[in-house]
């Protein structure tokens, strides 16, 4: 037992019963920890047809197999559950400093079932765990609640806290779980599940160590990697104004090639994720005007206000997540914005800038800072909320919603005050906010009158802010068992990961025509399968997506797993584990009645109708065929997406589904 703790904590919130449970080694050998252990446990213990907001649903909060092992960029924690947003598999993950403390408390994960009769929080340290009354923090936003709980549970050091805000308490299906004063595990409606269980927070205070097989080897590998990243810096002249031109160059490229993933580290170190704010406007990555517009609708005069330099101008300090050497995070001073309601906020991610920028044609950067802090505190997913606001604006523009429906708010493109007013209603489920608080699919069903034609979602979840018409492989990944997720992969990432150097069946990339990536083929399908298998391994290990895209030349997950566990497995053997986890997630969906076909991107996301302007003008993806080939090559039924019996047998998943 090296690298993992070998046990979990089970909490029945209905009865208050708390038990440790030993997990056999073979479970870790087959599923790793993190999302893999979560998939194994939820598959076994959530009955088919369980109500996602009922007592039978289970919420898991897990660390990764590599977390706290001395490895680098492996500090993410996972939330898993049956998603109330999609009705199928739900997961979300987040960085910060929470993940290692789960293992320092002696477990790999905590699984909550049942529903508490009153608001509670779980306190856990190395000695044990107990449920405590949370009446005094129920109703508080996530940042306030975290501060109060840290103070009252403080011993020698402040504990780490995962907590829901008002959106989770109000069971908004687009709410998440917050840690580190505003970082959020946002997707799949994991916050709503926590709220439905009346579980306000998890407070962890641990100090235990995690034994690994080869600590000297891990130390040497981490030191070498840290040196490389420390030395990798963008030239000083590299400023934010360059990104629109880089995007333009990218859009003109006829050929693409494998590239050095370390360049991503250089970008993330200096800027974080925000270069895409403007680069994505010229290459088409940014969805505009509820996915129906382009840079023509949000011209340079507007998008240049979201120049990353303007955001860095407010950055007062940078920070790193646990075990990270890149440090893409930052804290920004916003005390002068909107009357000084908030003093500071986490540097808004690209996703937030885009979902409340070009998606609703809003060029008010101050408003984006404000919305970022407001939603982080409420614990609401900015991606889903941004898509929902854009949907509502388009409904209003087309007369489907009126001022009578919105409580007097005149919704129009680019009106930041109206957007903020609408979001406040969504957080509090007030009037029109109650209609919109569960995302676009539910909202369209409630509104009727043809509103569904403006509801952009994939399998029930709003897509991330990357247009797959720029990168069709990303579109295939949108059909993941957690549909609509953008942090799985894409061709641009595959070209930097060099998986083909380690994995015998991963297609090699040298130089090729960009247009080849638009043609459905077995090669593109295999790239997708390799990426998704490696990503599930990354999520099982607690790894960061931004580390993953450095590529195996710089961040070799296979090597780190062997150093931690001593298993001495080949890369191909690890990829079988990745495929097993991915297939287990797909089987969870089919067990719960989710049709995989419903998660294939359609409508505006695939380019139906095609955009009439911008870099992606006229493109409609053959996404159904691309997904069909991916399923076929995975050993899933190419028509239905249901894993074939032979695949289930080969991946030794029979025991899981019996």
């Amino acid at each position, binding site marked *: 037992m090296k690298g993992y703790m070998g046990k979990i904590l089970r909490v029945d919130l209905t009865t208050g019963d708390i038990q440790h449970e030993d997990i056999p080694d073979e479970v870790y050998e087959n599923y790793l920890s993190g999302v893999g252990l979560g998939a194994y446990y939820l598959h076994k213990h959530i009955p088919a047809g369980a109500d996602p907001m009922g007592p039978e649903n289970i919420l898991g909060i897990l660390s990764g197999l590599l977390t706290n092992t001395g490895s680098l960029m492996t500090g993410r924690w996972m939330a898993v559950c049956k998603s109330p947003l999609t009705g199928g598999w739900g997961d979300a993950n987040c960085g910060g400093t929470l993940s290692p403390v789960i293992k320092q408390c002696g477990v790999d994960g905590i699984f909550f079932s049942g529903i508490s009769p009153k608001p509670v929080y779980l306190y856990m340290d190395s000695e044990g765990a107990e449920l405590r009354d949370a009446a005094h923090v129920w109703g508080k936003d996530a940042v306030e609640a975290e501060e109060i709980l840290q103070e009252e549970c403080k011993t020698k050091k402040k504990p780490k806290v995962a907590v829901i805000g008002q959106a989770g308490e109000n069971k908004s299906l687009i709410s998440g779980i917050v840690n580190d004063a505003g970082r959020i595990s946002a997707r799949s409606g994991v916050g709503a599940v926590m709220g439905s269980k009346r579980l306000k927070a998890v407070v962890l205070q641990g100090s235990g160590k995690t034994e690994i097989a080869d600590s000297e080897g891990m130390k040497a*590998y981490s030191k070498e990697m840290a040196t490389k990243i420390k030395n990798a810096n963008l030239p000083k002249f590299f400023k934010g104004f360059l990104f629109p031109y880089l995007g333009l160059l990218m859009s003109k490229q006829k050929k693409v090639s494998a590239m050095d993933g370390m360049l991503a580290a250089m970008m993330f170190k200096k800027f974080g994720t925000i270069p895409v704010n403007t680069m994505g406007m010229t290459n088409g990555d940014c969805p505009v005007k509820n996915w129906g517009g382009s840079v023509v609708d949000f011209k340079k005069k507007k998008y240049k206000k979201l120049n990353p330099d303007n955001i860095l101008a407010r950055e007062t300090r940078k920070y790193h997540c646990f075990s990270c050497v890149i440090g893409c995070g930052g804290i920004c001073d916003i005390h002068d914005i909107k009357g000084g309601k908030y003093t500071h906020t986490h540097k808004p991610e690209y996703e937030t800038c885009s979902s409340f920028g070009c998606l609703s044609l809003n060029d008010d950067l101050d408003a984006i800072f404000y919305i970022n802090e407001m939603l982080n505190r409420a614990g609401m997913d900015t991606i889903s909320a941004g898509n929902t606001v854009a949907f509502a604006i388009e409904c209003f523009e087309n007369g489907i919603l009126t001022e009578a429906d919105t409580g007097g708010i005149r919704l129009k493109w680019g009106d930041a005050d109206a957007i903020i007013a609408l979001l406040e209603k969504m957080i509090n489920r007030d009037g029109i906010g109650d209609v919109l608080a569960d995302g676009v699919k539910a909202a369209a069903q409630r509104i009727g009158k043809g509103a569904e034609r403006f509801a952009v979602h994939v399998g029930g979840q709003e897509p991330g802010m990357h247009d797959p018409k720029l990168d069709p492989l990303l579109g295939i990944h949108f059909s993941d068992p957690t549909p609509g997720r*953008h942090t799985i992969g894409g061709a641009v990432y595959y070209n930097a990961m060099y998986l083909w150097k380690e994995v015998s069946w991963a297609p090699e990339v040298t*130089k090729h025509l960009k247009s080849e990536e638009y043609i459905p083929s077995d090669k593109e399908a295999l790239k997708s399968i390799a990426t998704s298998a490696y990503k599930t391994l990354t999520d099982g290990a607690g790894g960061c997506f931004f580390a993953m895209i450095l590529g195996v030349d710089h961040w070799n997950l296979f090597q780190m797993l062997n150093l931690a566990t001593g298993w001495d497995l080949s890369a191909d053997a690890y990829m079988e584990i990745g495929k097993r986890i991915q297939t287990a997630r797909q089987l969870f969906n089919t067990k719960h009645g989710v049709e995989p076909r419903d998660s294939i991107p359609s409508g505006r996301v695939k380019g139906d109708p095609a955009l009439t302007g911008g870099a992606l003008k006229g493109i409609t993806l053959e996404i159904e065929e691309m997904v069909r080939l991916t399923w076929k090559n995975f050993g899933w039924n190419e028509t239905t997406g249901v894993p074939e019996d032979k695949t289930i047998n080969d991946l030794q998943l029979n025991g899981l589904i019996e």
Partner: protein
Amino acid sequence: MRISVYCYEPREPASGACPMKIRVYAASFCSFEDIDMDGYMVLPDGAVLEDLFKRLQVPWLFRRIVIATVNYKKVGLKTRLKDGDVVSFFSALGGG
């Protein structure tokens, strides 16, 4: 298992006139003809960055404006390369 432990620290220069192996992460406008399957290019001892650009068939004008790093540092065209150096061409790669 084929694990490539990546050696970042540039190795000592080869003695005499031994050829150098340079790890090259080229851009799509480069010629890949002289890059081997593992991503390395062999250059004679004493070669400078501009020599590598020539082998990659980077147009003369581009050589002065392209963003390329040696061991992730921006250097001049006349910088002498060493065995084990890493040359990367900048390609925008971000995420969110």
